[in-house]
């Protein structure tokens, strides 16, 4: 991993079109500004990991549970029409 030390308002340039700026430092919190082209998705790491993890869990549904769920949803729909 490349490690760089930056001060407030200083920036890092990544490639031709991605810029990361240190906007504020407050105790153990750092506020970063990221300028990147629109086709580059930028996410908080833990959120991206949570989505990955959820997708992995979601890909494991069995046909049996799916049938049970489908049955329940249909039943529920008939019993309490909104």
């Amino acid at each position, binding site marked *: 991993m490349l490690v760089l030390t930056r001060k407030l308002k200083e920036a890092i340039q990544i490639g031709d079109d991605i810029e990361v700026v240190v906007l504020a430092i407050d105790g153990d919190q750092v506020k970063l500004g990221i300028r990147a082209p*629109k*086709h580059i998705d930028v996410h908080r790491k833990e959120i991206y990991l949570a*989505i990955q993890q959820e*997708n992995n869990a*979601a*890909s494991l549904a069995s046909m049996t*549970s*799916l049938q049970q769920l489908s049955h*329940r949803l249909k039943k529920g729909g008939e019993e309490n029409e909104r």
Partner: protein
Amino acid sequence: MNIETKYHGTIELSDMAIVSFENGLPGFEHEKQFALLPIHDSPFTILQSVQNKDVAFVMIEPFSYFPTYEVELDDATCEQLNIQAENDVALYVILTVAEPFTNTTANLQAPIVINVHERIGKQVILTNTPYKTKHRLFPETVEAK
């Protein structure tokens, strides 16, 4: 062409029925082509990888199950998917079907957004949103909120 699917057996698929996900889905970055396969007589649509039989996601249209659910697509997403108008868009959420199935949750934080006219799609990770990856489909089974 014929593809093998997780829930529908082997089916014939026209190229016109394939939706491209340029970057795959988080956790499934190499799966870039999917088919949308409704399950007969159910509210589910399966997002089935064309390349990999075992990669399939159970989706629902969220608005009848989560009536207050709202999604605002940002400019970057609209640009990536070339969305011009609301009727370009089909929106689904992925279910994590649990056992027992009453614990099934919906991922409202990262809906599947598809430009139905251009057949391109993306799992959009919403930012600054109250929605999470797990919203129960059957909240009545929770004792305390």
